[in-house]
């Protein structure tokens, strides 16, 4: 019999400013019960929107999240039950020795290379900002095994990825009808910052790197590029530079150590016949030299251990995008930046 564990933790958090979204709550344990009150909407009536007032989740029925929302006229509290993207447990420890934890396979049937829109059997478990693993491409095999950040959910069967127009819409890819599989990454690699696959490097000064996933890097961090011969821009291989700007999955290398790729050979993807190949990657290597401000002349401080990797694993729960979507006349959800007070319990015996 395990030791009895009884924990309770509570706190407040704001819904994302941009909806839909998701929130990760670090409890330090895996809850068996969660209750959330929408403090902002509590008691608000007649807003015309179906605002959630209260959310309840219990481990005895873990796939279902129950909520109470107020009707548009503000005259009644009504129940709602979600079976996907509601409350879910998050065990950051993962399943050793696996680097990632993945959701079930979703079958894809076609994609448009001009827009980066992928058609799958269902997008119900996906959400904007989610990381997905895509495998099994029967035509464009170069994309098999890559991680992508979902840009937006276009419909119940279509999602797109960001900035695809400048790299996917080339002769290297065929697009169109083909079988492939999509899996939601439910527990990502534990450490930040991480490496990522490069999908495009602009020929510009400074160079702009497009990655398949949003790396979450910040201005001032130093990176190294690995560009195998198959990707054309060999001059960029092993170059290091400091980030001057970040926008989604694009990184500008115009910091105090910058990268001018304007005279480089164009970055190009290998054709499907070029599989197997080693991907082009970008690897964070630290903070880079930092100018000090307390000395009369410009001096640089450099410590390899600066910006050391950070273990982001935690145990707790996630409030999913089916709850954190914009409430409207026909949509149960919340309003951006609503204050949510939560309580999580664990009660093993």
């Amino acid at each position: 019999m395990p030791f009895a564990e009884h924990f309770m933790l509570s706190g407040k958090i704001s819904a994302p400013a941009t909806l839909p979204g998701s929130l990760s709550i670090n409890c330090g344990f895996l809850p068996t019960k969660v209750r959330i009150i929408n403090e902002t909407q509590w008691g608000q009536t007649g807003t015309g929107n179906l605002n959630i007032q209260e959310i309840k989740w219990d481990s005895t029925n873990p796939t279902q999240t129950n909520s109470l929302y107020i009707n548009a006229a503000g005259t009644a509290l009504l129940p709602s039950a979600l079976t996907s993207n509601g409350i879910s447990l998050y065990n950051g420890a993962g399943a050793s020795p696996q680097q990632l934890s993945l959701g079930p396979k979703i079958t894809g049937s076609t994609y448009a290379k001009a827009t980066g829109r992928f058609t799958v059997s269902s997008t119900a478990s996906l959400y904007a900002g989610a990381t997905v693993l895509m495998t099994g491409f029967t035509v464009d095999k170069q994309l098999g095994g890559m991680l992508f950040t979902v840009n937006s959910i276009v419909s119940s069967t279509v999602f797109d990825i960001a900035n695809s127009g400048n790299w996917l819409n080339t002769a290297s890819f065929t697009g169109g009808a083909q079988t492939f599989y999509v899996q939601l990454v439910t527990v990502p690699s534990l450490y930040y910052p991480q490496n990522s696959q490069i999908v495009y490097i602009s020929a510009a000064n400074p160079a702009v790197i497009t990655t398949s996933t949003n790396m979450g890097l910040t201005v001032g961090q130093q990176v190294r590029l690995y560009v195998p011969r198959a990707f054309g821009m060999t001059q960029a291989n092993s170059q290091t530079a400091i980030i001057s700007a970040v926008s989604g999955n694009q990184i500008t290398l115009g910091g105090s150590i910058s990268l001018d790729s304007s005279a480089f050979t164009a970055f190009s993807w290998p054709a499907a016949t070029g599989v197997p190949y080693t991907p082009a990657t970008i690897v964070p290597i630290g903070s880079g030299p930092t100018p000090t401000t307390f000395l009369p002349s410009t001096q640089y401080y450099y410590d390899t251990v600066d910006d050391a990797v950070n273990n982001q694993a935690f145990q707790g729960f996630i409030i999913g995008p089916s709850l954190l979507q914009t409430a409207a006349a026909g949509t149960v959800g919340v309003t951006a930046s609503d204050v949510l007070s939560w309580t999580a319990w664990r009660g093993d015996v």
Partner: protein
Amino acid sequence: MFINQDPVLNQTVSLLAQSMRETEDELIRNMLASTASVINCTGGVNGDNPTELSRSDIDTTVLALLGNDAMMISDNIEGTLKFGTAPVREAFWGMMNTAVLDDLEAVTGFISQAQYPSNMNVLNAEWGSVGNVRFLYSSRGSVTPNASLNGNNVYNVFCTGQEAYAIVELTTATASFIYTPPGGPTDPLRRLQLGAYKFAQVPRILNDAWIFNLRCTHS
């Protein structure tokens, strides 16, 4: 001094010690899987991306490490007059999952550790060598699930030179074992005792050019 040993506690402490060291290793493994530069195996024939391990992939990794001035970890083992043995080159170290040991054995030039001329410097977890890499195995070796072209597991073989990564230990949080006997403030009936460990560490790649994640699938 008379010590009344508790056999259950002793056994628990032994398990906790193993758990602590395995956890330390797993944290380092996870850091390397997140951050290390990658080379895909492409010399195999299983039709996947990456392919299974091949001699050309191991040689590519060795050349990349040497090209970045990485220093090898182990010295060569000179040949001796013993049947079935072969000299072992100066080597980098590769750390891999047990699931692909059969593919490693099939690589051209594989030398089992049992064929080393001397077992003086062989580690318990060493399986053998290929070219300038000696391979260590663990069932906890890093795996990225379903991440190949065909949706198969990708095995991360970390090939490292000297000083490629390190662990920063925090002075105030070095590994410690904790024992609380029965009869604590919340245990007036003296029913509960607690054995635990805690530690904090920061694993970190010091030079990304001196370590590569050689990714492969199973044949």
